[in-house]
């Protein structure tokens, strides 16, 4: 195969890696939107907090002498899921629940405030400089000739694919099979009716924030390790990207979020690989604007009928 083909494969792999983490964050937007019809603006910050907690846990474990990669990963996932879930729950309680039912602008502004607050809270608590961590998982498989240009599939990328796949399967099973999942779907259809049937809709709404936060934490751990560098501002951009992914796939739809995430990841990787890294964000936003203009319901979304 010619060099350019390997280059192409490499970009594709990179795109799929980043794209699958976008998908994880995007699901959080879709879950919340599906049920309360609003965008959780602070969701990107949850992802950032997930990264920080993971770094703290891993550094802490290393300090007390535990250097098994499996244990470190488990610890990082577990603790950051617990902490970010608490954040997700608190955001719903403070910035959304008291404001439900009024003007739609109001919860949106309060969530933006929450997002600014969380970003600066972490900035003040942990400092604004980049924090780097040496890679835990190194190495990978090389595809192509040993001499000349070849594509690499790193073990870290494999881990990202596997964990993303497991999380999404777990979520899909939860939504489609469990009692709580059924209540979630009922809530998305008709909140008032679900409430009348004796289901605690407040609890269900809180649950979607928690589920979204947990997935964002998984993405935070994975991307944190993949890039190896975090700072308090990463949530802003990641949140925007994930939102783009959710809209691209059709906000409110979970398969849509996955599809959107992958498409966005690949588009970005190719822009960076073939054009210029500086413009990959511009391409992402332009994609968002174009989708909203020509197909506001996204690739897999349901059209909304306006009631007169």
């Amino acid at each position, binding site marked *: 195969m010619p060099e350019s083909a390997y280059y192409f494969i490499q970009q594709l792999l990179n795109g799929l890696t980043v794209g699958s983490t976008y998908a994880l964050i995007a699901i959080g937007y879709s879950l919340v939107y599906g049920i309360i019809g609003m*965008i959780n603006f602070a969701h990107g910050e949850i992802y950032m907090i997930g990264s920080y907690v993971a770094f*703290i846990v891993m550094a802490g474990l290393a300090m007390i002498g535990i250097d098994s990669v499996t244990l470190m990963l488990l610890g990082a996932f577990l603790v950051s899921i617990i*902490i970010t879930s608490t954040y997700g*729950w608190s955001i719903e309680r403070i910035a959304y629940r008291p404001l439900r039912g009024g003007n739609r602008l*109001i919860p949106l502004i*309060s969530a933006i405030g929450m997002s600014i*607050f969380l970003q600066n809270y972490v900035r003040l608590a942990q400092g604004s400089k980049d924090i780097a961590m040496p890679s835990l998982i190194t190495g990978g498989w090389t595809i192509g000739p040993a001499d000349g240009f070849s594509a690499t599939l790193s073990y870290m990328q494999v881990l990202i694919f596997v964990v993303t796949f497991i999380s999404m399967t777990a979520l899909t099973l939860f939504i489609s099979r469990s009692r709580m999942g059924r209540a979630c779907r009922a809530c998305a259809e008709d909140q008032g009716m679900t409430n009348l049937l004796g289901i605690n809709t407040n609890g269900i709404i809180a649950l979607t924030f928690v589920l979204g936060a947990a997935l964002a934490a998984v993405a935070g751990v994975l991307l944190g390790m993949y890039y190896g560098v975090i700072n308090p501002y990463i949530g802003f951009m990641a949140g925007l990207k994930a939102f783009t992914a959710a809209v691209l796939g059709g906000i409110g739809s979970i398969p849509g979020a996955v599809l959107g995430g992958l498409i966005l990841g690949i588009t970005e990787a190719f822009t960076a690989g073939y054009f210029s890294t500086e*413009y990959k964000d511009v391409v992402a936003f332009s994609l*968002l604007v174009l989708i909203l203009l020509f197909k506001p319901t996204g690739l897999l979304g349901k059209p909304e009928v306006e009631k007169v």
Partner: protein
Amino acid sequence: MKTRFFNAIAATFVLLLLTSMLLGLTLESNGTELVIQVAEGTRLSWIISGAVIVFLFQFFRNEISQGWQNTRSSMGNAVPTSISEKVKTTSQLSGLKTTALCFLVAGLMIWPFFASRGSVDLATLTLIYIMLGLGLNIVVGLAGLLDLGYVGFYAVGAYSYALLNMYFGIDFWTGLLAGGLLAAFFGFILGFPVLRLRGDYLAIVTLGFGEIIRILLNNLTDLTGGPNGISQIPKPDLFGLEFSRRAKEEGNVPFHEFFGIDYSSGYKVIFLYLVALLLVIATVFVINRLLRMPIGRAWEALREDDIACQSLGLNKTAVKLSAFTIGAAFAGFAGTFFAARQGFISPESFTFIESAIILAIVVLGGMGSQIGTVLAAIIMTLLPEFAREFNEYRMLMFGLMMVFMMGWRPQGLLPMKRPHIEVERKPQGVVSMQSDNLTTSGNQLVREV
């Protein structure tokens, strides 16, 4: 009692989960290794006192909300108002108000000649934020469109003047016009497609737009100078009189030579302040007129019920677009002035944080309210100056304030009172209206309240 106790314990536990990791431990790089350190004593004591407060608050929640309700209702009873009384006072006030306003403006114009240079400079900065707040208020407060990329239009204004001056040598006043028009044009082009979208989509798309503008400014190095920005942007002149020691342009006379007075850099600062004041007064005037025009009414109607608006023949997109474009124009004016005042601009000045600050001003002051916005802008710019140590916590407080205001008083500190057109009916049954600034046909009188 028991459930109460458990609720309080649960809330405290949540707080500890939220704070212990991120606030109690800090990540430090130690060579190549990453280590964590337990935070110093003050932080730990914050966490503990926070936990105690949350526990007590949750435990005595009922009592607290009861007490709050009582004070509220007693406050409410203390102000008995009948509609007739209210109407009377407002009409008597209107004359008084105009006089007071004149005195205020005169005072603001004389003030810089007696104030220190630093405070005049600070006041100029405040005036820029007032202008931005008022402009965004048109979009968010009056038309109900959440624009998170407002700073993008501010940047368009600033860069238009800087670039037009660099390449074509236009002066400040032409630049002001060009900056406003170009920003409005950008607003129009962007708004045309996106204003059909639902409110929350609009928020994100505008946010993305603001970022795109910044990224472009950063990367189009040949045109904009990239991260290094543009420097040596000339200050405004007064009918060709420059405020520098020596005239930069051929044939121009410096201000001090023209009037035969000694050179002082203070004149320049005062002049900048006066220009900003003039721009703010013009902004206030325009917005006041807009509120009394069909378009101002259409904005409010659209905010209340867009379906009814459509059925009455109002073009939703056109009405929204007008607010978006006018708002963008004011950001453009503010941007041009900002570029002239600083003399130097770079993409750094136009980040999302700036949009957030302007939004915080609008939210704090009261969406739609002009006096509220002005006061909020003053608070927001002066507070960090007076309490330097507060600067670090500024954005944290802004974020908290936005959440708090939305929960407690979404209409803002000084909620807006739009001037309503009112009619008076004479006892004989003849319809009559009266007006301060509206003469109508026949014997009809309209009054604005």
